[in-house]
């Protein structure tokens, strides 16, 4: 299925950034998020989501996509303020989930090394 192929391909791009460009994970992820944001800005990411489903929504690039989506939706609805008010609207699920689950994990579990 396309989810597998597109998702795998995006990961390969990330792996090349690790191995060829010798970027750290933080640099790589930040770059991929920005790429996702830019692709959504020029309208290319949504068709990719329609086409590949989770192959486009699961990689971190979709985070950039969601941030831009939120910004642009609010821009349309609320005017120029929307650029700031809307950014985290769609990503709330991901960020909140990560914070909450990580916090709960740290209370319950200790690192194993």
């Amino acid at each position, binding site marked *: *299925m396309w*989810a*597998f192929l*597109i*998702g*795998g391909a*995006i*990961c*390969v*791009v*990330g*792996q*090349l*950034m*690790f191995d060829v460009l010798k970027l750290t*994970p*933080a640099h*790589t*992820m*930040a*770059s991929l*998020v*920005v790429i*996702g*944001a830019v692709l959504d*800005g020029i*309208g290319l990411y949504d068709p990719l989501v329609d086409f*590949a*489903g*989770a*192959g486009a*929504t*699961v*990689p*971190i690039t979709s*985070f*950039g996509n969601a*941030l*831009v989506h939120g*910004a*642009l*939706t609010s*821009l*349309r609805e609320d005017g*120029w303020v*929307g*650029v700031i008010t809307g950014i985290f609207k769609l990503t709330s699920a*991901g960020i909140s*989930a*990560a*914070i909450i*689950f*990580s*916090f709960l*994990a*740290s209370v*319950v579990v*200790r*690192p*194993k090394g």
Partner: protein
Amino acid sequence: MDKRLPKRVDSALKGRRINEQALTNNEIDFGAREMTSLSTSSAGGRPYKKLSMSPKEYQTFAKEREPTRSILTNCIRAFVVGGAICLFGEFIQQLYVHLAGMKREAASNPTVATLIFISVVLTSLGVYDKIAQWAGAGTAVPVTGFANSMASAALEHRAEGLVLGVGANMFKLAGSVIVYGTVAAFFVGIGHLIFGTGGNH
């Protein structure tokens, strides 16, 4: 070589050709970074000469002797694991659509949350990093990597307390992703504002 020489040393070195190997302890007192050793005098044996490579030569020398990363193997592993995770995400999304009656777009949020939950559990069990050493970007690029970065930082800093440890350090690794994503989204939004596309795309 530190280019920002303090003024008093600057005048002392004026007119002298700066050759990294010619610099000695006596001339530099601002903490030169690339000093090579002085030639050592022998105490009875033949003197072995100091390392005669310049930093640039040594860096090339060291690079040639670096074990090559098996890029192809790493990419194949990343492809397989990353694809598998996305496929699994697709599967979960379908579950939400069919069992919870959500629409496809609406189901992507709980899907991401579910994947995050699974990553946090795997991180807590201590197996995520072992999988990631094998899979590389295959586990790091999907949102699982984001969750792992937050969970691992939270777990690690629990020893420093819940507020200053967990609370303050949770975003140690994930922070750059959020910051750059937000800044990028802001500029994209501004771009749309300026070019009057008003969010339609």
